[in-house]
């Protein structure tokens, strides 16, 4: 979006996390970025909602934490 995810880092990250896979096509890199963005977006939305519930204009860590578990479950494939 506004910033670009460091692709090299992402690639390294995926490679290290994944056990046996060898490659990651550059296009797939972009797709992964997309996935990340989508996930973050959802997270932020939910966190914002919870923060609003708390009647606080800023998103705080506790809001985020409450939301994260749910979102992680959702983003499981």
């Amino acid at each position, binding site marked *: 979006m506004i910033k670009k995810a460091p692709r090299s880092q992402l690639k390294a*990250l995926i490679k290290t996390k994944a056990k046996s896979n060898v490659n990651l096509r550059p296009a797939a890199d*972009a797709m992964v970025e*997309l996935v990340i963005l989508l996930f973050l977006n959802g997270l932020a939305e939910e966190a914002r909602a919870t923060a609003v519930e708390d009647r606080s204009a800023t998103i705080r860590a506790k809001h985020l934490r409450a939301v994260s578990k749910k979102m992680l479950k959702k983003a499981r494939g």
Partner: protein
Amino acid sequence: MDTTEDLSARVLLKNVLYTEAPRTPVTRSTSQAQRASSGARRSSRLSGKDAGAQTPQQILRRSLKHKLRESASRMSLPPSNVNRRTTLAALRKSNTHAPATASLLCDEGVTPRHLLRNILQTEPESSMLLQEKAVRKEPQLPSANSSMNSNRPSTGLSELDLPDLTVANTVGTVRGLKRKRPRRSLNITAFEKRLKDSNDDEKEDEESADDLSSLSSSLSSSATLSLKTPFVDVRTEKRGLQRKIPNRRKITIEEFGAGIHKRQMGGDPGASIGMVERALSETAVSEGFTLGLSDLIEPDLTTDIVNHNTALYAQPETAESNLSIVATQDKPTVMASQLQRDMGEVEHEDAAAEIQTDEGNAAMKSQTEEEEAAAESQTDEDDAVVTSQSEEEEEAVVEDAGAVESQSEVEAVVEDAGAVESQSEEEEESEAQDDDVVKSQSEDEERGSESQTEDDDVAKSQSEDEEDAAESQTDEESAATESPPEKKEIGAESETDENDATGRSEPVEEEAVSESQTDEEDDGKREGEDTEQATKHLPHVAEHISRRAYRSVGGFIMPFPEAEWSGKFKRHSAGAMYNNLDLRNSMSHPHGGIHDFAPYLPEGRAGERPNIAEPSPDVEIENMSHLQLSEDLEDSKLLSADPEQNAAQSPAHQEEEWEDEEGLSDVSEELSMKTPAFVREKRNFFTSDPLASPTVLKNIETSVANKSLPAAKPKKVRAKRTGPAKMEPGLPKNYLMGVFRHFAKTKVAPDVYPVLKEIMDKFFDRLAEDLEAYALHAKRKTIEVEDVELLLKRQGHVNDKVPVEVLIEKYLPMEYRKLLIPIATSGNVVIPKQRR
């Protein structure tokens, strides 16, 4: 809904009753109201049941109802027992209904309460009987309907629950009317009154008492737990006055000691065993109980806590009586010392074990026993209680033991004075239960020292000085920084333990102590002498360290503890330091397995930060610091068999905890690793100095530090190198926060970043896993675009309504989009090149 289902039988009964009731003007409205209210509840079942079971049951119910009303109306006249029973039964039903249907109460002047009241007032005594009869009746009633029968007894019994309470209350009230004002709220008071009354009035009281007892029993069994406990307490208190409980405790403690002895016997063949055997033989009870002591210890301790204070004074007497048995004396002292150790957790165990073997005294054994016991009971509170208990016992035993002990006591007093202060401070801070506990702890320390001072007074003084110094330091530290109460307690406990250990094992050789401490394996072996000293020093040193660690963990004051830690070491003689370390290490050796010494201290801290709540980590941290120091000192023999068991238990727990912590706090650890790097360096510095026995170190390292050492070193390196492949750090912080802020559209506090990072890490893990799975499923070795697409679909981001391309367009920057979305350009060229 469940309740309604459960009440189905009841509801049925009620419905039936009330369906009949409507005939009478009073009940009609209520019944109708009930029907309306319970309409939801009513199910086909109800209707069916009603239809089937009505005739015989209805008749009975009607009669009951009628009687109830009659009794209610009469009020003054005591209805016949039969009537009461029926009314009670009816009342119960109605009672059960009452909560369900408010209409009942409203409509009928004859509310269940009134009915019950009347009944109770008229014949409170027979309430129990009534209940029983009512129970019988209810089951009898549903004869026609099988389902009803099955339900009814249950309902009747369940209904009894309510009436039990009410009956009890009424009974109490009845009693109260006679003497005091009725109190429904507290059955306990009623019981108490009744009990008192029983003394005064035989007849009624007895009956009432019986009733009360039955009521209480029934109440406790059926109704509320709250009722049960207080009632029990009342009784126990009374019995406590009789001093039954303290006696029991003694036995348990002795048993505990016996159990410890048994363990010791299994671990260490030697004089201690002989002692243990004697002690065991002498205490027959202990033998029987020893096996299960470990498990029972904690509950005993906890229960003892409540009654402990009262028993404190009683125990010495009993302890003295026990003293008559020579062997037992040792045990209690050992146990006491051990219990104290428990406070300090594993560390103490090692120290105790060491102490025992070294001096070969019963006291020493007791220490190990205590340690074992301590190991078993790891809760701080329990430890406090235990230590206090053990201390008391020790005191009693020690005092009786002889002049030597008295001498040591004097010395110990000096030590303890400082320790007590520190302890008291700590304890208070750390939610110390009572002054008694503190005193007991201090006492224990004294005792512990006493038991062992026999051999070396000088050593004691040295240790005492150290301890005092350490204590003062720790006190200061504790006062300075707020650390979680648990930690403080642990610290306090550890101090007490340390004090005890110091007192006990004065001339402990460093090596022995260090060895025992550092090696997990050694735990079982511990050879007292060296370890004793080390344990002595280490405990209080460790305490200080632990305290510091706590502080550091809590406030991230790494340098502070570091300075203190290093400073303390400087103060103490090299030997003392190492001993302390060893002690600490030995004590914490169970932890040591998981955490290595110096490098792990920061780890421990890091790990702890996320899990500050756990007290064990704090201790572990201490241990780790000690471990570091004691690495060199690992030569110490360590390990009497006694601590093995305890150590095994404690380390298992601690290890588990640590492992969990480690796993969870990987990220945090990395982060924290960087900060304590210098701390680690300092520690390593110290550890290198005391290179006592390289072999021991190796052993320890291999056994304990396998994980930690290699991890510690690379972590150090990592800190400098900014990590390999940026696995953990992963995404740059700015990027993450930026994206998040953008998406959030509202302000985002910066403190969300760590949380966010953790989340993202987990997310990445899952992501990689899934992608890999998809690729493998497609028998490919590379993750393709389609894999990611599939992931998106499965995650729900891509639907029929939202094709992938749209998402791409929406989120990705241009250059990426080009990659992903083929763009047709002139010349029949498609960008990107399609591989089809």
